[in-house]
């Protein structure tokens, strides 16, 4: 039995707006809880080790910084077979090369998710090593999460807002989580 959904943030948190995807899943995880058959993953810049996550879900939702050629901070979603196409054509980072291979290998094994959504944000700054998200990109985290919840509701995945005082196990060590948003 595959998971109902996997929400995957990819990118490098050490590299300014490259970290958008990871920051988005962290924020989602901090604000909402969901059922056990929904995985929320900080994928970092991992390649092949993300394959099991991709192969083990019906619905894959990805957050990433994508070069759409739009004004910076613009958010755009693509779906299903357009997802690998976008990662192939609009590549701006190394992690996208390996992630595109991950999707191809899932295709080869016959275990590609039945539905996919990619929520991308046009980055402003990819060059500041050690930098945080820029203001226009950070401002899209909230809207990106709202959009993700909307897509996932369509796939029958429910989220509950966390209550004040809930103990939340962080997705990443606190030292890293604290750097960005």
């Amino acid at each position, binding site marked *: 039995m595959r998971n109902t959904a996997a929400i995957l943030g990819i990118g*490098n*948190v*050490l*590299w300014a707006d490259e970290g958008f995807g990871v920051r988005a899943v962290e924020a989602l995880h901090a604000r909402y809880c969901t059922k056990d058959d929904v995985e929320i993953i*900080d*994928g*970092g*810049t*991992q*390649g*092949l*080790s*993300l*394959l*099991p996550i991709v192969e083990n879900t019906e619905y894959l939702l990805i957050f990433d910084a994508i070069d759409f050629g739009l004004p910076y901070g613009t958010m755009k979603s693509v779906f299903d077979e357009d997802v*690998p196409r976008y990662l192939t054509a609009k590549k701006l980072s*190394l*992690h996208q090369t*390996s992630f*595109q*291979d991950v*999707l*191809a*290998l899932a*295709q*080869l*094994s*016959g275990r590609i998710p039945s539905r996919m959504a990619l929520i991308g944000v046009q980055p402003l700054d*990819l*060059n500041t*090593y*050690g930098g945080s998200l820029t203001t226009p990109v950070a401002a899209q985290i909230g809207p990106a999460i709202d959009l993700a919840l909307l897509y996932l509701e369509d796939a029958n995945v429910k989220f509950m807002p966390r209550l004040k005082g809930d103990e939340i*196990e962080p997705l*990443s*060590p606190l*030292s*890293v989580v604290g750097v960005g948003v």
Partner: protein
Amino acid sequence: MTTITTPNGFTIDNSGKRMVVDPITRIEGHLRCEVNLDQNNVIRNAVSSGTMWRGLEVILKGRDPRDAWAFCERICGVCTGIHALASVRAVEDALGIKIPENANSIRNLMEATQWAQDHLVHFYHLHALDWVDIVSSLKADPRATSDLAQNISPWPNSSPGYFRDVQTKLKKFVDSGQLGPFMNGYWGNPAYLLPPEANLMAVSHYLEALDFQREIVKIHTVFGGKNPHPNWLVGGMACAINVDGPLAAGAPVNMVQLNLVSSIIDRTIAFIDQVYIPDLMAIASVYKTWTYGRGLAGQNVMSYGDFPLHANEFSEHNLLMPRGAIVDGKLDAVLDVDLRDPSQVQEFVNHSWYRYPDEAAGLHPWAGITDPDFVLGPATVGTKTDIKQLDEDAKYSFIKAPRWRGHAMEVGPLSRFTIGYAKGIADFKEPVDKMLTDLGLPIDALFTTLGRTAARGLEASWAAHKMRLFFDQLMSNLRAGDLAMVNTEKWEPATWPKEVKGIGHVEAPRGSLGHWIHIKDQKIEAYQAVVPTTWNGSPRDPSGNIGAFEAALLHTPLADAAQPLEILRTLHSFDPCLACATHVLAQDGGELVRIQVR
């Protein structure tokens, strides 16, 4: 310049036709390679360049040393745990923290797991396609493939129907036009020598290995809490073990999970010994006359040593993977390596895009400087944002040039096995001798591209069997009642001296990795990492010595000058990982050029 001989004994000639391969595919990170070919398409000069800047050293300055591992874990998409381990070891060394035996066993187990998984993934998913022609496998007879497979291994997935299914699946994938990772292959190149049946067997195992590698890393999830990005801890490990306790959210590691680890270890040993090694031998037996790619192998090789059998003891007798350096091919005189000695490991930058006050001299990492300086030499063709050809007489890489007592060194599985062999240690000597005897080859055949690939396979088997050793060691310690996992005596910064320095070294899957830390007033004052691909992929140094990549490419003939298959084969044999050797774009924001040959 036309022809010169380098101090380390290589003749290079840059007069012939220049060819650029950028980026080198199927590696982590960004590597560019330029070669000069003579009229017979033989490589006479090679230039290897890391085209992205790293900057880890800059980001760590001023941070809490106990957090450094979490940043180090993010610099690479492959060996996250390896950098984290080097980092916690550096901090522990600086502060004199002794870790419990259980933490040592678990760290060794996690590291050996990483070796087995990394070597497996490298062989099948990054390197095999340099030897195996995917498209040719579509022509194989599944029945003959089954005969071949059953002839070399007892592995059960070997029926004609099994191979026919794989072939059908592959054909469908190729026909769909979505070649994915197979997109950049030089299919049909005459340098591919395997018969279609061997190609089909290898492709089938490519897919099986893909399924299997996910199993192996569950070990990291058990002990590191999660994967990717498992948790590490200065002073020990972050997991608590309760052999008798129930499984519950947030509960310590219990017997159910330990049994899972044990069964993964059994399957890892079986997969490597019954699939990986037989495939390696089958490939080697066909390619054994392809004897190129020697470079520094058997000549100048080094290992920092690793896998302390007991905690906190890094002296030679306690390390299962030996430490040492061989210089000038003197296998009978393995020299000792001391990472603290300022005259041993030094980094040079006169051919790297960094600035030193005096670039004729090298700097020991404790005195290291990472100050980027992206300038191009006068013979460069093109511009900063569109380089057509690098000028290797000037600065040409974001990789520094580390040297050991002034020598360029090769690191990695073959170097480690060479040192183990030279020391006469049975763990290394016996499998090497057996493999050479089975293939009918002399010891010298080991010092080649194929030898590098073979040593990695033997080392994967070594690591898989050591996983069992470390697991058993952990279990017997737990059963004896020792449950200690972390030493927190010096956790509080108030207990630290005002200023200290430390080193953390690890043998990463691809070679020797060192982190040098300087802690002052409870913060990181300076941090330097010298990574395996810095050693192997280094540019030239002030004396004119060339590094392992450049040396290994010399004298190799290309079957087809438009398809640099042989260049990929040799560079991949080192398992280059540039993500941590270099990082991001040129500092002025200009993206460096990517000319793709083909």
